[in-house]
């Protein structure tokens, strides 16, 4: 099944965005 490779650490996500020169796509979700 296709899946998005979510990062669950905000700081880690921004660091990767900087390293990869990409925007971060941040999904604020309701875990239910």
């Amino acid at each position: 099944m296709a899946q998005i490779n979510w990062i669950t650490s905000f700081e880690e996500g921004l660091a990767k965005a900087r390293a990869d020169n990409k925007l971060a796509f941040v999904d604020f979700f309701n875990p239910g």
Partner: protein
Amino acid sequence: MDAVAYIDPAVAQFVNDTFVPVRIPAADPELGPRYKVKWTPTMLLLDADGNEQYRTLGFYPPEELIPSLLLGMGKVKFNVPDRPGACDCFGKINAEFPKSSLAPEAIYLNGVANYIETHNVNNLIGIYDRLEAEYPDSPWLIRADPYKLLKK
């Protein structure tokens, strides 16, 4: 989003290839208030400093989520300004997702970005003509209405 959009193969590939995907519970006591999250899903595009560049909320089916993210990325590039990059994003919406509800806005913004780059009014006239021909019921045609007056 989990049950429909995020498991769509095209969405997953697009998100993985284009962005750094980050998932945060809306109730996060620090990030929720910082980004004024009031509803889920709230989806943001952030730069590497954490500055919000684009925001949308609510459910998207797969065929609308990719155009929405392309539109957001195009707006980010438009504001840099990286207008050729913005036009690439807007153009992809029109080429690959012409039935998207966001396609008329993409036509508008693509024409505006091209006009700013070239100062050629045909880009503005083209916005009106294309919207009139392809999306006559779109509110973006109303916004483009003055451009028909540029015709000689």
